[in-house]
């Protein structure tokens, strides 16, 4: 007989890791299972941007809350997490996008964030390798970047210090409506509740879960210290990230610890394989070159692709299943899972133990997307 746990978390990505850290800190007996190694799914494919986003009030609430948690945790992060509070520069190519900069500034400032509007000249001074002729931008001072797989490992180490167990190379085949999980080898592990934190693998465990794989590409260069200084994103990114159908690319680059430049981004639905799509890669790099012409002199070391777990309303699923209070969700974070992992862990732990949450949890409740659909098991 296997011993019993309070919570068994399926998924050792950054969301499962943060959930394990918070649940174990709350005194729960936690087991984390993953079929692969730590952070081998979306976490390992991600850029690692810690960014406040305001597509919706709920998205802003979750990302800004999570950024506070990251800042609080930053002094404790080991060097290999490469926490770099470089800020985000949102780039406005023209006057229309500049109007969006001012709207964003008003909103962020109203919410107490540190932001700074840059005109064309101060943008050029802040990032000399950007092409001339851009209208300006918005600097979000307290955004940061991290190296996600090491952050996931660190959070799992924290969980282990609190008594959690982590087992990798274990394939879970079912979540039991009465608590616990079934493994692919037929073993059952009993627990008061299970948490589906399996990211892109979460619909396989919960058939009908509205989480779709959205593919993305990344390229990393050799070391060129100082080539860029901030995470830089085109405001047009919002248009392409919003689109839920068409394949799209957007300019998004980030400085890594040793001076490497990480180049994104692309979005594709219905692209199951994680192989490089040369056409998308070319489109993505062309977009980057339009903003940073000097990129053509840099040598790329590696390119890769991965998938993000996307929901129809761009918000994650955090909380219990409407059908069983023994099955919970922490999934569907799409491209914001690195940022929102810590907030997800906090909300999940608070909800499980019945503590008040620090921000309203209702916007992320799974029932909003699952209720009224009897076919979903």
């Amino acid at each position, binding site marked *: 007989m296997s011993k019993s746990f309070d919570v068994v978390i399926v998924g050792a990505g950054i969301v499962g890791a943060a959930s394990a850290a918070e649940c174990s800190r709350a005194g729960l007996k936690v087991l984390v299972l993953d079929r692969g190694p730590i952070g081998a799914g979306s976490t390992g494919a991600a850029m690692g941007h810690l960014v406040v986003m305001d597509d919706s009030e709920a998205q802003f609430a979750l990302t800004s809350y999570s950024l506070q948690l990251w800042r609080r945790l930053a002094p404790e992060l080991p060097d290999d997490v490469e926490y770099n509070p470089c800020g985000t520069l949102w780039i406005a190519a023209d006057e229309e996008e500049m109007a969006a900069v001012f709207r964003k500034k008003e909103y962020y400032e109203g919410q107490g964030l540190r932001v700074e509007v840059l005109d064309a000249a101060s943008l050029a001074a802040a990032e000399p390798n950007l092409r001339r002729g851009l209208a300006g931008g918005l600097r979000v001072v307290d955004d940061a970047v991290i190296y996600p797989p090491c952050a996931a490992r660190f959070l799992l180490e924290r969980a282990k210090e609190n008594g959690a167990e982590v087992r990798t190379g274990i394939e879970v085949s079912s979540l039991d409506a009465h608590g616990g999980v079934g493994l692919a080898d037929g073993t059952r592990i009993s627990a008061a509740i299970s948490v589906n934190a399996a990211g892109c693998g979460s619909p396989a465990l919960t058939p009908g879960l509205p989480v779709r794989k959205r593919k993305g590409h990344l390229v990393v260069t*050799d*070391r060129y210290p100082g080539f860029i200084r901030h995470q830089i994103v085109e405001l047009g990114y919002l248009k392409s990230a919003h689109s839920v159908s068409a394949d799209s690319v957007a300019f998004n680059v980030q400085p890594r610890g*040793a001076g490497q430049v990480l180049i994104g981004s692309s979005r594709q639905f219905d692209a199951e394989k994680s192989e490089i799509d040369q056409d998308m890669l070319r489109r993505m790099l062309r977009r980057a070159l339009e903003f940073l012409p000097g990129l053509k*002199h840099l040598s790329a070391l590696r390119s890769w692709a991965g998938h993000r777990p996307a929901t129809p309303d761009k918000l994650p699923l955090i909380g219990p299943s409407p059908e069983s209070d023994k099955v919970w969700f922490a999934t569907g974070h799409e491209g914001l899972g690195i940022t929102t992992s810590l907030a997800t862990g906090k909300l999940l732990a608070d909800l499980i133990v019945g503590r008040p949450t620090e921000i309203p949890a209702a916007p992320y409740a799974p029932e909003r997307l699952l209720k009224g659909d009897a076919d979903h098991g």
Partner: protein
Amino acid sequence: MADLVTITVDSVSVSVPAGTVLAAAIVQAGVTRFRRSTKGEPRGPLCGMGICFECRVTVNGRPHCRSCQMLCEDGMDVRTDE
């Protein structure tokens, strides 16, 4: 006697026969620390065939050139230890 070409290695002039591999000329200029690792450790040519990337230097302002895979050209400006 082969024609000589002259290159500059960290502001030091060195003349070598045309056709000399750049890595060899850099050693002739007295440099053994071609570059540094991310942790600041010294690095220099290891494989000599373009695979290990340990011999990278900056040539005419262009970083990360593998000096074992380049021939010296007259007037080359080479910077090491960057």
